[in-house]
């Protein structure tokens, strides 16, 4: 061989197949959201039907039952943004404290928190429900937000990140200039912590946005539902169970299609942050 091949066709084709696998359900979802329920059942799934009903489907999804869909979407936004920013603030503030200060009991506390990374959050959901029902928090937005604020993995990520990204000598220089520890955190260190902070925001946001088990347990009033629980209710109303309302299937499909757009758009614009912060956590054992 005289020419050094820089690209591999085999690998490219293999990855294109993978891409196809990732996209085809979403493609199906989009196509289906443009169909009337009749076309949904009678025309081929991977291409458009006789009528292009996207607009009327969207209108139906957004106005059905006094516009509950929009309310659920708004709830999801509120829950996930509050939880994500709250969890990231807690993780950053305390992860930094553990990384940059020496205090009695630090290592024991650190071991206690890191030891719980493997405790599944879902295992806590049912006991948390019983506790919350004692103090009247069940069936309020707080029941979804509060448990999402504590992320041992987010804490771990920020601890590692703060250890590596915040420069001790800059902190010392600020001290010599007479800055207090809080001022150092807010004015000096926070800038270096920002990429890690954004990463924790992102993965808590996705986790809360996509969460189903916790809100399903905690909420019974449909005005507090996030979109996941709402869609699941719609689905069980149309399919299986009663099956009485299968005329609304195209509305469920359209609701599902609309619900994935915000996060996909966010992913496209924020993709570089996933990498920068995750790499810190992923290289440490």
């Amino acid at each position: 061989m005289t020419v050094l091949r820089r690209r591999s066709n085999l690998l490219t084709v293999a990855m294109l197949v993978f891409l196809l696998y990732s996209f085809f359900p979403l493609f199906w979802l989009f196509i289906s959201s443009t169909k009337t329920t009749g076309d949904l059942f009678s025309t081929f799934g991977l291409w458009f039907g006789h009528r292009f009903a996207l607009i009327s489907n969207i209108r139906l999804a957004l106005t059905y039952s006094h516009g509950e869909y929009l309310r659920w979407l708004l709830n999801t936004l509120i829950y996930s943004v509050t939880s994500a920013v709250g969890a990231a603030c807690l993780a950053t503030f305390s992860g930094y404290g553990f990384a940059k200060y020496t205090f009695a009991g630090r290592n024991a506390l650190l071991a206690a928190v890191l030891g719980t990374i493997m405790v599944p959050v879902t295992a806590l959901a049912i006991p948390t429900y019983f506790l919350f029902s004692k103090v009247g928090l069940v069936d309020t937005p707080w029941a979804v937000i509060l448990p999402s604020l504590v992320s041992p993995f987010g804490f771990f990520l920020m601890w590692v990140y703060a250890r590596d990204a915040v420069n001790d000598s800059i902190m010392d220089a600020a001290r010599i200039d007479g800055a207090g520890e809080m001022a150092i955190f807010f004015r000096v260190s926070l800038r270096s912590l920002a990429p890690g902070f954004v990463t924790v925001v992102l993965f808590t946001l996705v986790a809360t946005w996509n969460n189903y088990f916790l809100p399903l347990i905690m909420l019974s009033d449909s005005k507090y539902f996030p979109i996941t629980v709402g869609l699941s209710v719609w689905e069980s109303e149309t399919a299986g169970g009663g099956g009485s309302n299968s005329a609304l299937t195209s509305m469920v499909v359209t609701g599902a299609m609309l619900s994935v757009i915000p996060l996909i758009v966010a992913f496209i614009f924020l993709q570089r942050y996933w990498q920068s912060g995750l790499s810190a956590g992923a290289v440490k054992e």
Partner: protein
Amino acid sequence: MSRPANQVLGSRLAAGSPPPASSAPQRGRRRVRARRGRYGYVFALPFLACFALLFVLPLGYALYRSLFKTQLVGGTVFAGLANYTQALTDGQFLAGVSRVALFFVMQVPLMLVLALVAALAIDSGLLRLARLTRLGIFIPYAVPGVVAALMWGYLYGPDFGPAAQLAAKLHVTAPDFLGRTLMLPSIANIVTWEFTGYNMIVLYAALRTVPRELYEAAAVDGAGPWRIAWRIKVPALRPALLLTLMFSVIGSFQLFTEPDLLQSVAPTVIGPSYTPNLYAYSLAFTSQEPDYAAAVSFLLGLVTVIISYAVLYGASRRSRR
């Protein structure tokens, strides 16, 4: 950089020589550090308080609650470990645990190998459209499990799933994806679809931190891209792979969303104890046995933690050999 001072201290400790008697400025520095240590508590407190209230307390409450039994006659009485002995001989619970264990064995290796191959391919520089591939494979992670299950449920379905439509055109019977035998593989496919991209990003992020000079040195020594991937990159990915493996243990043993959604399309296949989490849910909210539900939740959490540690321990032993 404050490296030199640390290195001096390090070499002194290594040499075993006693530190010089503390002089006045050093004592002063120690006092400063102690005062500064108080700020450590200030910083640590918010997270630790929330952690205690929202993580440790529910865990403790589950344990406490699981030691009681509520009866129609006599109310709530202390029952010791009765709930646990009941769970360990409860056929429904055990069947659920072995089902998710089978799921773990079946789905996780496939997903992680796919994620690893994709991460290596994107990192190799041999790929056309690498950026698009990376983003595209990651996109399903943005789709909520509820929507993924709903979507695939329709795709699998006999009514308007493309597979069923194609089979009808060809006058053959489509495989019954939502039947008893194929249900678990069908769920495995949904989970693989959702999470391969996430795992790929974790692995890819770790790959980017491997010093490029290592590859250049290997290439100079005549190693091709495949050899570099297998001999340098995969070993460098060990910590990241363990991380993804750990999260996969949790994901498998806590399986809930996908089977819960598919329940409405296949109620005869997915019963209320199909997975342990579904079982705990139905115990707590359908059959009103909160104490037993607490025991099942706690036991399931324990099983998950034990298996995570077993996986980590097994992996670290194998690498030492």
